[in-house]
């Protein structure tokens, strides 16, 4: 099989990139390890979600094996999804731009490293990504970095519980604003308006942006993109010149096949991108492809998170919508981040137990059970905090030769710990959230356990110095001229913001660069506006 560009992975990065290239007439083949999840069977995913199960299980399970180490267990189950759409199948849809200071932590605060690109470099691509995904928002965030375009969709209205939080935040001097999200507040791009179905991790109507419902079919519709599902890439092979010659992949039959192309892009997520590079050893790259820096797999990051909840006297009517509508970025910006990590506050529209959880925990039956469910439901408010994690080379993705996947390849080993920097931010965030809940007059205020967002970040970081980074500012591997690595693995720092909008913006930018290099012009000759996406409301 041949293509001009071979892409590994049909998720947020790969799907956006495939569309941008296909719209320019570039022949693209996307190899996706998972299946194409049929939208007609979306109800099955919804039912799994409602049973508190993974909505998107895929077989064979041996393909998703991994091991963990470090002081904190970072589980991958439910935090990534295999299949066309990737993690956009189950993401929350929160589509925040990173702040301009997030790109220059070294310059602003003397910690970590600056990105090789600035917010201003990425800003037009953020605008394009918002249009492509259909982001609903309004410019009411006091700390927002400058933007060249308005949100393509109006913001979702604040919720009933938001109105309670807003009053407490105003009293405490804490900023409170809308949470931008890639979810249709109005019909957009052929997808319907959100109908408050409440199962956003398996949106039953396709109102939440998902690459499998938009970018991939749109790319295929150009006639220039082909997606091969259940095709797991096993390694990359080099030619004599030291460039990638082929992707070697296999289906469930384990028969190896090859995809040749001029340019190759890894878009399989921060864990699998790193693993694939580490699996692709050769004489020029004995420790893994594009790994002369030794940084492939290093500086793995996520977003540690905690919910702080409190009990209200009156019913606050949770679970009427599946997402949050308000947040505060104040503590992600207005802090001395040299010593105190940034964090976001997400004001939850649904906290506390659902009727089934109340029922199962009650130990009651019959009429007494029914009364308990009615009395207990709807009495909890909650605030979720997401904390920025700094890059640390000890946090890493490596190969575990003692555990093999379906194809016999070593499974990824996730080594993960939190530093005092993150733990300090978590403590600060818990205290701020607790103050807000106390101001609301809640009782039994307490944090839930530590958990982690499904964000895997930083295993093939970008930079200008090939000795200290894996890819350059255009996401091209320093060591391999025809190899690009996209997705959140290329982030230098994590910020406190969800990564998906930045992933999409960077993918659009990388597509522009790839198109320019393929067509023989400079990237700037292939203008953003010529190919990017300007769908209409409908």
């Amino acid at each position: 099989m041949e293509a001009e560009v071979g892409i590994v992975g049909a998720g947020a990065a790969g799907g956006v990139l495939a569309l941008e290239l296909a719209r320019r007439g570039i022949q693209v083949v996307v190899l996706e390890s998972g299946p194409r999840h049929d939208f007609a069977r979306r109800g099955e995913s919804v039912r799994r979600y409602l049973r508190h199960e993974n909505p998107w299980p895929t077989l064979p399970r041996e393909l998703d094996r991994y091991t963990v180490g470090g002081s904190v267990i970072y589980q991958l189950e439910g935090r990534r999804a295999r299949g066309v759409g990737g993690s956009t199948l189950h993401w929350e849809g929160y589509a925040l731009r990173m702040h301009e200071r997030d790109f220059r932590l070294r310059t602003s605060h003397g910690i970590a490293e600056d990105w090789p690109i600035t917010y201003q470099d990425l800003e037009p691509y953020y605008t394009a990504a918002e249009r492509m995904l259909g982001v609903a928002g309004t410019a009411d965030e006091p700390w927002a970095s400058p933007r060249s375009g308005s949100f393509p969709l109006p913001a979702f209205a604040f919720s009933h519980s938001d109105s309670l939080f807003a009053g407490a935040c105003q009293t405490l001097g804490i900023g409170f604003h809308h949470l931008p999200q890639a979810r249709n507040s109005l019909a957009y791009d052929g997808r319907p308006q959100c109908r408050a179905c409440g199962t956003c991790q398996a949106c039953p109507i396709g109102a939440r942006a998902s690459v499998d419902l938009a970018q991939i079919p749109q790319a295929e519709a150009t006639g220039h993109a082909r997606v091969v599902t259940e095709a797991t890439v096993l390694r990359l092979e080099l030619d004599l010149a030291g460039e990638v010659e082929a992707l070697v992949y296999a289906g469930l039959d384990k028969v190896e096949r090859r995809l040749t192309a001029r340019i190759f892009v890894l878009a399989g997520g921060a864990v699998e991108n790193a693993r694939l590079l580490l699996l692709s050893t050769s004489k020029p790259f004995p420790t893994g492809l594009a790994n002369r820096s030794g940084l492939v797999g290093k500086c793995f990051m996520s977003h540690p998170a905690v919910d702080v909840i409190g009990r209200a006297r009156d019913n606050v009517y949770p679970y009427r919508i599946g997402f949050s509508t308000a947040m505060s970025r104040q503590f992600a910006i207005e802090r001395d981040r040299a010593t105190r990590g940034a964090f976001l506050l997400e004001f939850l529209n649904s906290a506390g137990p659902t009727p089934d959880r109340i029922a199962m925990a009650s130990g009651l039956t019959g009429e007494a059970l029914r009364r308990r469910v009615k009395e207990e439901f709807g009495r909890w408010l909650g605030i979720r905090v997401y904390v920025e994690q700094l890059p640390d080379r000890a946090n890493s993705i490596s190969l575990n030769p003692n555990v093999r996947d379906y194809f016999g390849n070593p499974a990824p080993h996730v080594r993960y710990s939190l530093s005092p920097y993150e733990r300090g931010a978590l403590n600060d965030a818990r205290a701020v959230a607790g103050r807000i809940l106390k101001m609301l007059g809640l009782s039994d205020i307490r944090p839930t356990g530590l958990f982690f967002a499904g964000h895997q970040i930083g295993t093939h970081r970008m930079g200008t110095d090939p000795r200290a980074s894996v890819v350059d500012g255009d996401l091209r591997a320093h060591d391999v001229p025809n190899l690009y690595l996209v997705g959140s693995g290329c982030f230098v720092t994590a910020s406190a913001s969800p990564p998906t909008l930045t992933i999409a913006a960077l993918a659009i930018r990388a597509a522009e660069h790839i198109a320019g290099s393929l067509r023989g012009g400079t990237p700037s000759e292939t203008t953003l506006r010529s190919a990017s996406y300007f769908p209409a409301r409908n």
Partner: protein
Amino acid sequence: MKSTRRTLILGFLTIIGFDPSSLPRLGGRSEDIWAAPIGGAQDSARGPLSDLELEDLVAFAGVLVEGRALSAEQRGFLLDHLADRARDPSGYYAGLYRTTARLLNRLAGTRFSSLTPDRRLALLSRYRLTSAAVAPGEPLGPYPDAAREVRTRAVPDLIGGYYGSAAGWAAVGYATFPGRCGDLTRYTRPEP
């Protein structure tokens, strides 16, 4: 189900606290509920649950979740849950449900669903089958393995399945809820 002399005797013995399983087989018709061991291979056999098994399970769940017989609509929610679970390719839930129905019938000495609501409650109370928690060393009756499985697995599953359905949301006053789409503006205001 038609009452027979045998079912009436067994039902009476159950109400007064006698363990019918300790009786030798009484005469009368042969029923599958007497024929196979509980928790054996037959319980885990795959395939759809029979109408009789479903009736017994719904009758059991009615006591658990509402303390009374369920309405047709409530039955429907529960049957949806049972059917959904029973489709699990591992066969685990089908086996669990069969174990549950068989245990209930053995203890009742007849089809559990044929008992009146009061007699259902009396039987379940006597064998503590409405309690999911099992204390260490707690006597579990004549079929301890099955009783343990029913209490620790089936009871939470049936309660969770029912209160996770529209019936549970109706109990808290919600007509639309996670999984049932509705009005996008409803979340912005208190419920009427």
